[in-house]
């Protein structure tokens, strides 16, 4: 069975159902995929301006809200200048 154990203490990107993208260090998780994210920052993407990074601190996210947990390659992430990134924000999930 796959589990998030491999991601613990790594930097990850969380994509939530409302379209938010949050990066942080995965401090813990449980069977329902509830997640503890430390030093988290929300990244707000925009087509006109660069990425806005909002520091959020210690986050407990409910598993139901999570679409995706991705391991972030810290070296590649450091080399990216967020001010130059232009992207459409991810829309929230719509069911049905």
């Amino acid at each position, binding site marked *: 069975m796959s589990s998030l154990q491999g991601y613990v203490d790594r930097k990850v990107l969380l994509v939530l159902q409302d379209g938010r993208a949050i990066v942080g260090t995965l401090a813990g998780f449980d069977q329902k995929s509830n997640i503890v994210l430390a030093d988290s920052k929300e990244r707000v993407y925009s087509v006109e301006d660069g990425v806005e990074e909002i520091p959020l601190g210690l986050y407990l996210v409910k598993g139901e*809200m999570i679409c995706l947990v991705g391991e972030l390659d810290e070296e590649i992430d450091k080399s990216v200048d967020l001010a130059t990134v232009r992207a459409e924000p991810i829309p929230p999930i719509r069911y049905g």
Partner: protein
Amino acid sequence: MLPLSLLTAAQNKPMLVELKNGETLNGHLVNCDNFMNITLREVYQTNPDGDRFWKLKECYIRGSTIKYLRVPDVLLDTVKEEQNRARDVGRNSRGGHIGGRGGPRARGTRGGPMRGGRGRGRGA
């Protein structure tokens, strides 16, 4: 670290709860359960648009309506410290029982020279 352990450790601490409908509630955690149902006190409730506010003395939030919770950063270090302390207490108490039979180095050295002395004394 389990999310629910972090939450239980956050009792009496201030936190921000965002609900699935976008409302936010700022307050101090009174209690929580395995479903993540929580009770808060001294709560400031804000509507999704951020233009209406309510002050509530106490409120109960059903866990299934919660999107996420934001808690003070220091809580992570506090909980890790407590987990380490609890683990160390377990280790020390178990080490004490085993020490009675096998003997850690400290007790061995205290016994060694004495035994050697007595032996030499008898030999001489």
